[in-house]
């Protein structure tokens, strides 16, 4: 096969793509729509994972106190907390201060708090842990919970655990969907390649008669299938990028930069396109091997 390797196959594949442009355009469109869904899940997955990591990395905890403690009780608890190895800093956040903070976070919707009547937020200590003690954060939390006068302890990792649950659901759901979409892409490509094979049946038959090997005949069709899926995947990335960078947040739902989300990392984009190519190759192989049988 000297002189007729990938370059020849690719040139022939582009010729084939042009020859059946309408069919191929439809295939690329369908594939890119399907891949947009995969990309959407990937975006959600990566952003949630980032949140989980960020929360997990937070070295802060809130120690909520029971109502009705005297100042002496509070000082005693604070002293005990500060005495604990690993505690970097502990500051008192009184009920009123907590409410003020909450009010700031609800900027624009303060009326919600006004409707509450009496301040429902408890007194608390905001505790910062030394980085070296990050893996002991749950032990410390458990310890502080046991102190007399402490109502509850919460820390970032608890939030991380909650999001991790959601992430798990997205991972399973997304994986199932990705498999389904993967199978669909293989099916679409195998059909497109089959059409291309039939449209050039005369040429293929002749090539067999004049001594062409299977590889020489089918190589361009496999590359064609691979290119179709890769173009589809690249287009899907383009659509996602348009949603993310160009459209206003109200139109792009949560998929936008102003909402503080990250776009897919370049490596993931590369994997998406390469994965598309692999699916295309599989679809092409299915049709091609059946055709020559």
């Amino acid at each position, binding site marked *: 096969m000297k002189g007729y390797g990938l370059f020849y196959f690719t040139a022939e594949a582009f010729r084939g793509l042009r020859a059946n442009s309408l069919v191929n355009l439809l295939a690329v469109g369908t594939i890119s729509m399907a891949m947009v869904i995969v990309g959407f899940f990937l975006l959600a997955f990566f952003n949630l994972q980032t949140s989980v990591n960020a929360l997990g990395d937070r070295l802060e905890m809130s120690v909520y106190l029971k109502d009705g403690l005297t100042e002496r009780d509070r000082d005693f608890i604070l002293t005990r907390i500060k005495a604990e190895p690993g505690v970097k800093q502990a500051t008192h956040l009184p009920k009123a201060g907590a409410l003020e903070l909450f009010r700031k976070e609800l900027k624009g919707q303060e009326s919600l708090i006004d409707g509450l009547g009496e301040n429902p937020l408890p007194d608390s200590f905001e505790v910062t842990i030394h980085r070296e003690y990050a893996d002991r954060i749950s032990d410390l939390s458990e310890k502080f919970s046991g102190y007399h006068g402490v109502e509850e302890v919460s820390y970032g990792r608890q939030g991380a655990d909650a999001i991790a649950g959601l992430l798990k659901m997205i991972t399973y759901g997304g994986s199932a969907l990705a498999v389904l979409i993967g199978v669909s892409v293989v099916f679409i490509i195998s059909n497109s390649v089959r059409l291309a094979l039939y449209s050039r049946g005369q040429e293929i038959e002749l090539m067999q*008669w*004049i*001594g*062409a*090997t*299977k590889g020489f005949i089918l190589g361009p069709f496999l590359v064609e299938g691979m290119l179709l899926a890769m173009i589809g995947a690249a287009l899907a990335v383009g659509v996602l990028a348009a949603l993310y960078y160009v459209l206003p947040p109200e139109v792009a739902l949560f998929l936008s930069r102003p909402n503080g989300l990250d776009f897919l990392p370049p490596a993931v984009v590369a994997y998406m396109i390469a994965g598309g190519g692999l699916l295309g190759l599989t679809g092409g192989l299915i049709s091609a091997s059946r055709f020559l049988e």
Partner: protein
Amino acid sequence: MNLVIHWDLEISVSSLPLTMIQLHRVTKYYEGVPALREVSLSVDKGEFVFVTGPSGAGKTTLLKLIFCAEQADEGQIIIQGMNTFRLDSSSIPYLRRNIGFVFQDYKLLPHKTVFENIALALKVVGTPHGDIERRAYQVLKKVSLEAKRHLTPPKLSGGEQQRVAVARALVNEPQVLLADEPTGNLDPQSGQDVFSLFKDINMKGTTVLVATHDWETVRKMQRRIITMERGRVTDIGQRAASATALQPDAVRTGAKSV
């Protein structure tokens, strides 16, 4: 030292098989109906043989079996010393590269130019790009169609199209040329042109096997005629006295030493 070289040479020459195509009791069925029945024949290297007989005699089936386009149900077929039963499907393309095939309906690609049709045959065997133009031009010159190399087949006459098909069959310099009713769609003059091409090719050492029912040409050419009827060989024909004389020098030397 000289003695050793001489001995090697003699072995290599004398071991060259003289028989190019050999069929032994070959039977082929299509949906239970026999198309060939216990056909045995052999064709020597450099021979020019006609296979004749009425429609349905089994001529096309015979050529297809030799070309490995079909598998025989019974019997043995040996081409260039290779038993086709023992060939796996991946080896068949390599066997076909040594067998040129000319079809009655030419089987040219209508959307490709004459040059591209020839170039395809060169590409499938991995001919380097740089050689394709030169070799395609040379073979088209051989069939006197070099001036029409940029035309597509529908713009050529039937005779010209068949000459392109012959050029394509020859461009890889096969040892065997098979032709199935090559003049079936041609006027008498174009038919004559194609047969004289075959004669020239055979003169240069290529074994030629032509299936035809063009009796007039067959008689004129005075070559061995294998006659078939209802799937059987009814006459194996007389080998032409000139057959051995037309063989390439090396084969002739080998023949004498056996």
